């Protein structure tokens, strides 16, 4: 020791500071390093007879063998969850709360074992698993013990969705268990969880905690395995909902596989999150922010700030500081308490990172890495900075999921926002400036589910986390996360003619020519309504509209994909203006619509009656439509966001309700006017623009309605109407990458096609194939519609001068 002390006194080196892995290794040994499936609170051998290895990525050391669950195993797990559901879903709130509270406590008691096990299995620094992951896990269960306690009072009329299949990634293995299991149990769902094959150990350790707290059998089941196991779970007919966190690629596939099954779906997918630094930022603070953004968990974070956007005036100074900071990062044994970065999770991931860096170099990007070398043994990659990158570069577009940062510059806030939003993804963003005006303005304009102002990668159970765009849909955490596991049961069926069902052929010519009158009526040609103008169909073909007696009532244009294209263009260009209009002004437009509709109530009722033959009902429908417009005029400035109470009292977390964007509303056949307005009004009230496909059978109410739109100060492009074959148009809309959501009220087959096609840009879908009583406000208006019309953006604003 002595000579070394003298030397070290001169160099002041950091030595090794290892966490002792032996307790965790003994824990593995005590289980013979061979695990089983956790089904119905029993550890059972896999019927598949297959096992796979899990290794320590920092050393290559074999940690354990884990079962590869096959079809029979998944079957057993789902059955266990299904059998447990009736009792668990009716278990009193307070009792469920006690279980969740006990889980939180149990996680805290075993905190160090879980942290060490996590680092062994995943390769992340022990400092992170100890100080970040595990504390967030217990916090998540505490928070959701609260939602369990409050479920009935906070969500009256809602019930658990049922059996939930949950598939989680390897980057935060135990934290993702918490994010998935806690809200499910709080809601009263039962769970079949599949951990990632690279990192199954902490999920299995978690099962032991569940046994310790005495959670009833079957409430949580864990099946380990690779993607095949996940696919079995996704396709199992007895699973009511799939919650998935992982790559966008797999998310797309899950969207396709679940299409038309009626399964609920939430997806938390990839990202290429921007990190914006303005010239008046605390540059040193922002440099440290970059460290937390992209070198947290080796950059293997879905919301990693991987695109550095620098204001040109400070770019050089910032990069100089950043490089100096990179020199002082320490990469090595993740079990060492004083390293900043550990190992990459698996050889395949390391190879992917290397390959993408090669692509970057080949495309002319300039690479910078610190002067020191990473350890040769184990899966390590140094912190890496690319400059000379443009939005067209592969590195600027593709999620690398490694410690690789790309940097670009901007000249103005507007350009910064444009660059930031120039991506398919929309998971998170980080904004650095000391100017609050700028920070909040940019935060509002960024397309991302989370915006961190002067901070990054902060998480809390009270705040929802989830994406915009192709980063997925649904939220985890907070009140907004609870909705993902709740549904309204017992919806009464419509009293009146079919909502979905078959639609009569309408392209046949009239059976008998119209009776010649003394003076022929002036021809009326209902058109499409696109961009505030009445336009003829792209290809003039006609659809005949018949009354109940088979008599021709009129004709509408047969819309095709070009009409859809034009309508979406119009809706897209109207969106910024309309979304930026005040809620008060949007309400005024809706009131004005009601006023003008009321003035023509008799005419609309007559027209509807002519199509449906139900005169009295038609009058009620028009009156209900006027009321509905009033309802959403009222809601326009009342569907407020929230301020979340996160763990840091000096951080304001604003949950903003923002419009989804361009919404395609494919309307029910029944109630041709009311059905249309019931979808269009909540969308428009929330700031969306709409492409509506009206009732296929009775479209004339909609084509009359555009005259009301025309006279009610509705800005051009906010509401667009395309008539024609419902399912053909719905499919074009579902395939359109510039449509953000499709609401479809038609047939099961149509819904399946819409959901399958929506996978292209992972647009939100809302399909309802059951007839709905559109006259009943309890079922046909309100927060269910408004939640579909909005997405939650959480803006984190730490404060203090």
């Amino acid at each position, binding site marked *: *020791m*002595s*000579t*070394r*002390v*003298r030397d*070290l*006194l001169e*160099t*002041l*080196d*950091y*030595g*090794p*500071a290892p966490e002792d892995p032996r307790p965790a290794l003994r824990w593995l040994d005590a289980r013979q390093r061979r695990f089983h499936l956790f089904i119905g609170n029993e550890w059972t051998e896999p019927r598949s007879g297959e096992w796979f290895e899990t290794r320590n990525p920092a050393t290559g050391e074999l940690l354990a063998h884990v079962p590869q669950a096959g079809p029979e195993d998944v079957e057993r797990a789902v059955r266990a969850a299904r059998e447990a559901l009736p009792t668990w879903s009716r278990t009193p709130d307070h009792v469920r709360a006690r279980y969740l509270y006990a889980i939180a406590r149990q996680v805290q008691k075993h905190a160090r074992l879980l942290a060490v096990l996590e680092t062994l299995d995943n390769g992340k620094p022990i*400092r992170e698993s100890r*100080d970040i992951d595990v504390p967030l896990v217990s916090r998540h269960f505490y928070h959701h013990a609260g939602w369990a306690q409050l479920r009935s009072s906070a969500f009256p009329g809602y019930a658990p969705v049922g059996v939930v299949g949950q598939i989680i990634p390897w980057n935060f293995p135990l934290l993702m268990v918490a994010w998935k299991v806690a809200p499910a149990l709080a809601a009263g769902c039962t769970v079949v969880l599949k951990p990632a094959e690279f990192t199954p150990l902490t999920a299995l350790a978690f099962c032991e905690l569940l046994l310790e707290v005495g959670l009833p059998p079957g409430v949580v089941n864990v099946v380990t395995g690779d993607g095949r196991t996940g696919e079995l779970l996704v396709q199992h007919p007895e699973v009511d909902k799939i919650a998935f966190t992982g790559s966008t690629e797999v998310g797309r596939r899950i969207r396709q596989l679940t299409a038309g099954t009626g399964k609920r779906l939430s997806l938390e997918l990839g990202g290429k999150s921007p990190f914006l630094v303005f010239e*008046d*930022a*605390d*540059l*040193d*603070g*922002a440099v*440290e*922010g970059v460290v*937390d953004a992209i070198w947290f968990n080796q950059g293997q974070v879905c919301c990693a700030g991987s695109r550095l956007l620098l204001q040109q005036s400070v770019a050089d100074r910032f990069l100089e500081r950043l490089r100096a900071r990179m020199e*002082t990062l320490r990469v090595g044994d993740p079990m060492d*308490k*004083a390293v*900043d970065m550990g190992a990459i999770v698996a050889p395949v991931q390391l190879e992917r990172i290397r390959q993408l860096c090669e692509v970057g170099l080949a495309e002319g990007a300039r690479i910078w890495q610190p002067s020191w070398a990473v350890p040769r043994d184990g899966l390590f990659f140094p912190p890496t900075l690319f400059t000379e990158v443009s939005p067209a570069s592969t590195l600027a577009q593709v999620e690398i999921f490694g410690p690789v940062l790309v940097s670009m510059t901007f000249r103005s806030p507007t350009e910064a926002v444009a660059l930031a939003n120039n991506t398919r993804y929309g998971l998170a963003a980080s904004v*650095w400036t*000391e100017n609050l005006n700028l920070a909040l303005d940019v935060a509002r304009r960024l397309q991302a589910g989370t915006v961190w102002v*002067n*901070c990054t990668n902060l998480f809390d159970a009270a705040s929802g986390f989830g994406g915009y765009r192709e980063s997925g849909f649904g939220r985890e955490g907070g009140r907004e996360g609870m909705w993902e596991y709740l549904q309204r049961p017992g919806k009464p069926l419509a009293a009146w003619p079919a909502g979905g069902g078959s639609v009569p052929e309408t392209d046949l010519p009239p059976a008998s020519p119209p009776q010649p009158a003394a003076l022929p009526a002036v021809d009326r040609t209902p058109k499409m309504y696109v961009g505030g103008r009445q336009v003829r169909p792209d290809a003039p073909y006609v659809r005949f509209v018949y009354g109940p007696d088979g008599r021709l009532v009129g004709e509408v244009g047969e819309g095709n994909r070009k009409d859809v294209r034009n309508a979406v263009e119009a809706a897209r260009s109207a969106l910024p203006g309309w979304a930026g209009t005040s809620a008060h002004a949007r309400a005024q437009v809706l009131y004005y619509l009601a006023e003008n509709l009321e003035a023509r109530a008799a005419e609309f009722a007559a027209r509807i009656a002519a199509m449906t033959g139900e005169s009295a009902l038609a009058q009620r429908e028009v009156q209900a439509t006027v009321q509905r417009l009033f309802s959403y005029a009222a809601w326009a400035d009342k569907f407020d966001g929230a301020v979340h109470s996160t763990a840091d009292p*000096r*951080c304001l977390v604003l949950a903003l309700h923002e419009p989804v964007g361009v919404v395609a509303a494919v309307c029910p056949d029944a109630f041709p006017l009311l059905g249309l307005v019931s979808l269009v009004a909540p969308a428009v009230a929330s700031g969306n623009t709409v492409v509506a496909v009206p009732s296929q059978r009775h479209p004339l109410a909609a084509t009359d309605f555009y005259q009301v739109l025309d006279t009610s100060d509705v800005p051009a492009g906010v509401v667009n109407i395309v008539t024609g074959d419902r399912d053909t148009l719905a499919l074009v809309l579902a395939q359109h990458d510039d449509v953000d959501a499709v609401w479809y009220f038609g047939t099961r087959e149509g819904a399946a096609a819409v959901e399958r096609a929506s996978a292209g840009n992972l647009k939100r879908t809302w399909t309802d194939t059951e007839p709905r009583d559109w006259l009943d406000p309890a079922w046909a208006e309100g927060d269910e519609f408004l939640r579909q019309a909005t997405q939650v953006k959480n803006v984190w604003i*730490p*404060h*203090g*001068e």
Partner: protein
Amino acid sequence: MATTVSKVVHTPAVHNPGTDLDLAWVASVRVNRSAAERRAQTLPARRTVKREWQVAWLLRAVRCLDLTTLSGDDTPSNVRRLAAKARQPVRPDILKGFGVEPHEVHVAAVCVYPNLLPAAREALAGCAVRVASVAAGFPAAQTPFRVRLLEVEEAARAGADEVDVVVSRAHVLWGDWRALYEEVRAFREAAGSCHLKTILGTGELPTLRHVAQAALVCMMAGADFVKTSTGKEAVNATLPVGLVMVRQVRDYHARTGYRVGFKPAGGIRTAKQALEWLALVREELGESWTRPETFRIGASSLLTDLERQLSYHLTGRYSAAHHHPMP
């Protein structure tokens, strides 16, 4: 004089000559408090040293110590006691156990009130420990400027190697950077060849940005060290405050080439805290800055804890305070 020869060891090659007051630079300083606090909070968890590495760090902390007594009841007798401890801050048997010779480890300086300067000088004659005096209306800087300036001159004349001056918090609160600059400039002149440390009294400054700007202006005015606190404010040296100060030191060096030292003081009582401060400076400024020429810790009771931890590393047993000679 033999004393001056030995003191060369710890004297920086050049004073910081300062620069003109650059108000645009001062105005451009930005500090985000939440970000600074996060860095300060996570840094100790990111950097920890164990075993012989920790021994070396503890010894380095001893070398960077400004062993301080600033009490109303200070007399030559307790100052002599402090000086004796300063010469031999760690029990020789402990040092030898680590293969370090006793003469290799002494504290950087002894810091006293001006009245005790003669006693301190006498007690430290012939050794490399430097003598520092507080001055300029310590601790509140609320005496007439003429008197404060005179104190600095007197300290220099009385043979102080280093003068720790307090700055007028009022100038900082009012954002009167020119007044602050001129005040420190005057102290700089008055201090002559003495090493000038400027105490910001950060516990009495309203924001971290004020701390950063005050530190920068002091450096422009020729301070050789920027120091956090007097130890008499309600809030002493904190890591976030230290962080923003060392970042200013780094920027000043980058722009001017002059190396200014950093001294946290007040409330640093445990070896663990001392290691955190060392880690902060090592991380933000580099190892070369963690030497007595550019890093000091102002403390009184800290030394005993450093010595106890060193003893623990040698023996494997936790030590008691009374097993170590008191300062």
